[in-house]
């Protein structure tokens, strides 16, 4: 069953009419990928990549969310094998009460395992534990010729490297074998530290990161002058049972559920103007003094998941999320340039996030390398936004920085090629496994990752 639907990424930036299928069985998935009327296909999980990575306007977009079986779980080793359409939230819901948590998690649990592998996602513990792919032991892929193959560090290793961070372009991920990690509780022991400016923030991160598994800073990107880059650092470690308040100790792995709210419709543009955002950010900074408290995983890792459709606050035209990664020696000056450019453009962004990154990912197109990464939302204002992102891209290129494909919605082919030195390797692997370019997304087309498709 193919339905015609206008879809976009999570940023709702430039939605496009697509032909979408949602197979319920592996056989149906096989038929969807081999489907003769679709010259091309791309997998789409829960649609949380921000840009056009999971849409394929001229071809078919294949939703994987109905293929969400957990296949096997070893309670003694914590190795889970599950369909690619299983979400991180499902893994957490069923296995956290048994003492197992994700090796790392992005800021939402509404991400499929397949999506997490395809973008080689990272979380607040990147400086210590690396990105998602590091815990992936094996993937199962449906290839363009209909074969189902395994790929790991020892079997089809090149295909494995092309799959981690490869945005689903080498083959469709059908299953993931993942090493979970043990946890004693579902809580973090969090320390908040304020930093009055960027230099102080970077210094604090350098000093504290070795002592904390999780580290992230909420940065007020409208602060100017001496306050440029002022932020609140959130530093956390997994809490032990003894760290919990008395009344939570009897159920350390099952914190009380939070009520979720919903954004019922697209907000009008005035709601998130520069004035409201500036006021909010000031308040946020003022409210968080240096403090320490125990917070449950949901609150710590998924603060926005309790608000359904939060992307609607940016209105009908949507937004992009800009994520920049800079090497350590360029971090301070590069961040100053980025923050100044954003401040000058007067494009209100909610809180932005700054994080120190750890080791490079293993995938050919893995995003992370050691340095600092800044992520922020930019509402779609049309031409002013386009001018701003051009400027930001330019700063990044000069500073040997890099953009994140799971977020990108706007950059150009030459910019991408300069940022990802293994792009040609990816093209070669793709030529081996998908010579006729069956797997293509709007993003791959826009960035020329796949030529003539």
């Amino acid at each position, binding site marked *: *069953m193919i*339905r015609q639907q206008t879809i976009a990424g999570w940023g709702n930036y430039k939605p496009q009419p697509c032909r979408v299928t949602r197979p*319920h*069985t*592996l056989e149906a998935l096989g038929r969807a990928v081999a489907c003769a009327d679709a010259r091309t296909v791309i997998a789409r999980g829960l649609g949380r990549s921000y840009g056009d990575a999971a849409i394929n306007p001229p071809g078919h977009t294949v939703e994987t969310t109905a293929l969400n*079986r*957990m*296949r*096997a*779980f070893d309670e003694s080793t914590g190795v*889970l094998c*599950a369909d690619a359409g299983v979400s991180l939230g*499902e893994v957490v819901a*069923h296995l956290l009460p048994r003492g197992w948590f994700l090796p790392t998690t992005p800021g939402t649990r509404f991400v499929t395992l397949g999506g997490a592998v395809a973008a080689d996602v990272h979380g607040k513990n990147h400086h210590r534990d690396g990105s998602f792919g590091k815990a992936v032991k094996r993937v199962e892929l449906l290839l363009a010729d209909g074969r189902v193959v395994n790929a790991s560090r020892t079997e089809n290793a090149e295909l494995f490297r092309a799959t981690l961070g490869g945005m689903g372009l080498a083959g469709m991920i059908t299953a993931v074998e993942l090493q979970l990690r043990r946890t004693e509780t579902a809580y973090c022991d969090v320390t908040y530290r304020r930093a009055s400016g960027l230099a102080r923030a970077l210094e604090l991160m350098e000093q504290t990161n070795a002592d904390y598994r999780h580290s992230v800073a909420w940065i007020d990107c409208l602060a100017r002058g001496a306050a440029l880059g002022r932020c609140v650092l959130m530093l956390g470690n997994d809490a032990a049972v003894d760290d919990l308040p008395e009344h939570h100790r009897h159920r350390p792995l099952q914190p009380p559920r939070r009520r979720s709210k919903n954004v019922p419709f697209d907000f009008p543009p005035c709601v998130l103007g520069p004035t409201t955002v500036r006021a909010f950010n000031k308040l946020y900074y003022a409210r968080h003094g240096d403090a320490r408290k125990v917070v449950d995983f949901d609150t710590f890792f998924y603060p926005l998941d309790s608000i359904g459709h939060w992307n609607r606050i940016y209105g009908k035209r949507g937004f992009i999320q800009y994520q920049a990664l800079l090497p350590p020696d360029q971090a301070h000056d590069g961040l100053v340039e980025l923050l100044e450019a954003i401040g000058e453009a007067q494009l209100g962004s909610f809180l932005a996030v700054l994080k120190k990154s750890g080791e490079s990912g293993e995938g050919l197109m893995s995003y992370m390398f050691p340095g600092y990464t800044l992520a922020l939302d930019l509402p779609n204002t049309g031409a002013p936004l386009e001018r701003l992102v051009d400027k930001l891209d330019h700063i990044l290129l000069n500073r040997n920085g890099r953009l994140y494909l799971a977020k990108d919605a706007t950059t150009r082919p030459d910019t991408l090629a300069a940022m990802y030195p293994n792009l040609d390797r990816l093209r070669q692997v793709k030529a081996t496994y998908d010579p006729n370019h069956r797997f293509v997304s709007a993003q791959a087309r826009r960035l020329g990752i796949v030529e003539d498709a």
Partner: protein
Amino acid sequence: MSENVLVLGATSGIGQPVCHKLAARGCALVLAGRRENELQRMADDLKVRYQAAASVATFDAMALDTHKAFIDSAIAQADHQLDGVLLCQGYLPDQQEAQADFAEAKRTIDVNYTSAVSLLEPVAAHMAERRAGWIAVIGSVAGDRGRMSNYLYGSAKAGLSAYLQGLRNRLAHAGVHVLTIKPGPVDTPMTEGVVDTNKPTVATAEQVAADIDKAIRKRKNVLYTPWFWRPIMAVIRTIPEFVFKKMKM
């Protein structure tokens, strides 16, 4: 105490989420259906998610004369103690096609009605003998009144509904409970492309499954799900036939 439950048509759109509910509260499941591979995938999934006991059994709803033997083997698979049976298989034809092609009409009647009789009679005998158990069957609001747009499916579900009334009456004397489930339109693979899932009256399979699980536990007789179908169908049933026949429904 863990119950042994046989789910017929387990991979159906409503069957699956009900199985999750049953597995979550500790039922040991025998998942029955046509596609062994998909059933096994589902059993593995329930084992991982809920640490539930789940095994599979294959049957074809259209192969009516195999049903007695199939139920006997399924009862054996459930350690000769079947505490519950949930029947979910259904077939929604294109009404026009079923009018024109009797094979399609027969398929509709057999999957929705005849197979329920051939499968549930041996189940009823087993439970009556044990003087315990429950049978829950997915009918439809479409069975409450025949309508031009859907009367072949509707008539099979109406037959099913009357059959279950009689079965409930019979088994009540043996301490066995029978639940008739009447969902409105639900967003499932069966209705994909037939019902418009954006309509507010179209329920999700998860909503319906939660209602079904609750109705099984509370030993309800007839469940309309979502609840508002009960008053709606009460009104539709009272429209006099001389008026109804002129309507286009």
